[in-house]
């Protein structure tokens, strides 16, 4: 069953890529003013993306059957599922607005996120007692759906920014826009690197004392740039590459050294990829993307972004705060304990609340609103990746 499940995921992954190709083709028809053709190819793209989604749903259900619990209990499963909810949110918003451009930007983000999930160990893990509850499913699934829809808000905002920001001269705006694109390329870079290393079956193992003070071993699937704090290569791996540096001892997340090593590889491979693209295109990547969105009505995408937040914010609040509090009361005896993950969910909530007030009462539309959504999504990613890397809390999982 576990094997069937990973096949479904693989099929979904490649189907999304095919759907992306179809959505991209609509652009050339739009250029030639062939509206009906463009619409038709958009519809085909949508259908293929839906098939991909169903296939990923198949992955989700079969993995649930294999493990006996919803596959949302570790980093691999959660990030994969987040990719799935972003695709779902896109499908819903496509039905409302019928804009292929949304697909051209959302599908790559979904694909990158799903590819990035493969950086984490994909074994089906048993549930520790604290996670043995139906609230695991309710809390995590609702939160991920909320985050996925908020993610579409970010993507619509990004389309808006690429459309309106003046690329003819360097500015703060072009710098930050380029930073966003660079970050995404880092995620692509690490996914490719991990894929390459696993094709070569690379692995290197250290003896170390983990964050709980237990003597154990840790294996990397990538060459070690950075080793564990006071870690030693095991005997068999002594002549393998690295480590050049040591993980600082204040990084206390589960398997922090491996996560940090992966992070460094993502910067390295992402930078390389970025430089290659930049030299090939002889332009800022965000400037190279601008022609894709030339025909976009910025007003419309401002509205799409706002609408996504309006749909996503209540769902996120329900999942990440209210259901979270109910479960915390049952499992941890108190509904709120200032655990770092809880606090960052609260921060995300406060941030989007501030966004809504600025938009409704202070007239922050358009560009300001779009930049806020970039920050909002950065907060979600921070809580997902950095909090799990640096902090040992109740939400620690591999």
């Amino acid at each position, binding site marked *: 069953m*576990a094997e069937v499940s990973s096949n479904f995921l693989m099929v979904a992954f490649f189907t999304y890529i095919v759907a992306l190709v179809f959505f991209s083709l609509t652009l050339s028809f739009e250029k030639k003013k062939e509206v009906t053709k463009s619409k038709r190819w958009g519809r085909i793209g949508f259908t293929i993306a839906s098939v991909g989604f169903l296939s990923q749903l198949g992955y989700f259900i079969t993995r649930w059957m294999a*493990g*006996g619990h919803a596959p949302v209990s570790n980093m691999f499963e959660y990030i994969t599922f987040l990719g799935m909810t972003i695709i779902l949110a896109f499908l819903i918003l496509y039905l*409302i*607005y019928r804009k292929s451009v949304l697909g051209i930007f959302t599908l790559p983000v979904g694909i990158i996120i799903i590819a990035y999930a493969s950086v984490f*160990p994909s*074994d*089906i*893990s*048993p549930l*520790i*007692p*604290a996670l*043995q*509850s139906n609230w695991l499913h309710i809390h995590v699934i609702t939160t991920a759906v909320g985050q996925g829809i908020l993610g579409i808000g970010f993507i619509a905002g990004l389309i808006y920014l690429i459309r*309106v920001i003046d690329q003819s001269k360097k500015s703060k705006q072009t710098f930050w826009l380029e930073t966003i694109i660079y970050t995404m390329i880092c995620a692509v870079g690490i996914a490719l690197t991990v894929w390459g290393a696993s094709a070569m079956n690379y692995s290197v193992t250290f003896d170390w004392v983990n964050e709980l003070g*237990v003597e*154990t071993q840790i294996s990397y699937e990538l060459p070690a740039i950075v080793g564990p704090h006071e870690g030693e290569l095991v005997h068999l791996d002594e002549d393998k590459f690295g480590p050049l540096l040591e993980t600082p001892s*204040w990084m206390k997340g589960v398997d922090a050294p491996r996560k940090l090593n992966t992070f460094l590889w993502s910067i390295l491979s992402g930078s390389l990829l970025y430089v290659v693209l930049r030299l090939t295109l002889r332009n800022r990547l965000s400037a190279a993307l601008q022609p894709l969105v030339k025909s976009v009505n*910025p*007003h*419309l995408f401002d*509205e799409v972004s*706002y*609408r996504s937040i*309006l*749909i996503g*914010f*209540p769902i996120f*609040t329900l999942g990440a705060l*209210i259901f979270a*509090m109910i479960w915390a*009361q*049952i*499992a941890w*005896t*108190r*509904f709120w304990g*200032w655990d*770092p993950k809880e*606090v960052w969910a*609260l*921060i995300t909530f*406060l*941030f989007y*609340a*501030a966004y809504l*007030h*600025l938009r*409704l*009462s*202070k*007239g*922050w*539309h*358009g560009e*300001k609103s779009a930049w806020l959504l970039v920050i909002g999504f950065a907060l979600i990613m921070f809580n997902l990746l950095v909090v799990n890397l640096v*902090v040992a*809390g109740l939400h620690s999982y*591999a």
Partner: protein
Amino acid sequence: MKLLSCSCGHTNPKGTELCGGCGKPISEQANNEKTLNMRYEGAARRSQAYHKSVVDRIWNFFSSVKVGVWIIVILLIASSIGTIFPQHMYIPTNINIGQYYENEFGFLGKLYYDLGFHNLYKSWWYLLLLAALTVSLIIASVDRFFPLYRSLKNQRVKKHVTFMKKQRLVSETNNLKFNFVKNNIIKQLEEKKYKVTTDGDSLLAEKGRFSRWGPYVNHIGLITFLLGGMLRFSPELFVDEFMWIRDGETSSIPGTNGEYYLESDQFLLELYDEDDETFQNAIQRAGGTVVKTYQTSVTLYRNQNYDQLRGDPDLQEIKTYDIRVNEPLKFDRFALYQLNYKLNEFKAMDFKLINEETEEEIGQIRVDLFNPEMNYEINDYTITLKDYFPDFYLNSEGVPSTKSSIPDNPAFIFEVNSPEKEESEVSFLSIGSNFDPNESNTYIIRLAGVDMNHVSGLTVRKDFTLPFLVVGGVIFMIGLVQGSYWTHRRIWIRQEAEGVIIAAHTNKNWFGFAREINGMAEKVNLSQVTDQTNINEEKEREKYGGSE
């Protein structure tokens, strides 16, 4: 109070932007706008009308959305600071806390501790921020709700042409009498679930007004939640106790004033099978042990005599239950949670008495480590427990002492009286050592066996503030959904000299709204609405928009 009268005859209070009757711009700013700012229907609010007394100033301060957003942003930044280093509550309790931060995190850790950030979420200024947020929520809501409610309740069907032409969505159809298309368009509007009212040759269609109350409903929910949170400061509403219970032990549950007793049958810790087909890879990765269950099997009793001052407890069984993580035992608004455990705690020790010279074993005694007896007799021999240290250590003066009454590291001083010897012999025993102070003992005492026990740690909770939080949370979600998932749409149509004019306003989703109107307009041959804003105007709007 100064009143502003409009050409339509309606009088408006000071601070009004748009006339409450016909909608004509009254303030200079509104007059200059290309599209009108429709916030709160342009009605005057208390915060704009009064500026004199201290109360007015406080009111005006907290009613500002700008101030509200600043409070949110400061709260957000403060909260994030609290996650830089672990908070006090997540640090082991038996160490010097200031020293801990300095040792673990260096200079920054010391600074963090000195600034009080180690208890940030309980600091007076963090609580003050939460209080300011509550006040801001109350005042800002009251300041806006009533004028908005009155404006929408009393709105007129017939609006001034200037008001209509300055809406964002406008259509003008020349050379047409409205009465020709009126019935047809009403039919269209009603099909789309609009509520239509007419006044001569003017028409107002409206739907989803209740979504405008969403923000106020969710603010009420938040206020209830925050006030519920503040109730936690009164200890009567709140029980938070912890108990250790040993297998086989019956003890009174703390926090229940002796009303309830708990008996533990067994604490159970179960691990996942390392060779499990599905999970073996993940278990190996985790180092071979992953816990499957923590469980305490208990029987709950109620003491019938609990309200009498004396008398032994008269226990009546209420129920048996397996307490697990995620499955607390609930009774009489209390909940008992599985929180901690200790495996293999010493319960009793067996010792044998040996004559060292003859190697002859004289007999055995058993010492209960929680409730040890003083004297033990074996035939004619007497062993006296002169002193007992359940958790032995040598204190700073080098004298044997105990850290607690829990036998984690028991030590004993025995005195042996034998029929053969006049003088008694003293031995000192602790784990791993058998010390003879005089080095001349004939009889020695040796450890012969240990009896062990599991101990389960349970948290006892009772919380009367939860209903407030639940009600607050529910109201908040209702308001949030009400405001987010419905839209308020209004369409004004009226006859003008040259023809028919349509103006429309909504609080969100303009594109869908324009599509809806144009669908209807097409069917009755009215011009399509156009969106009067564009990006440049948007930018201008941002410039003056923030002047509140």
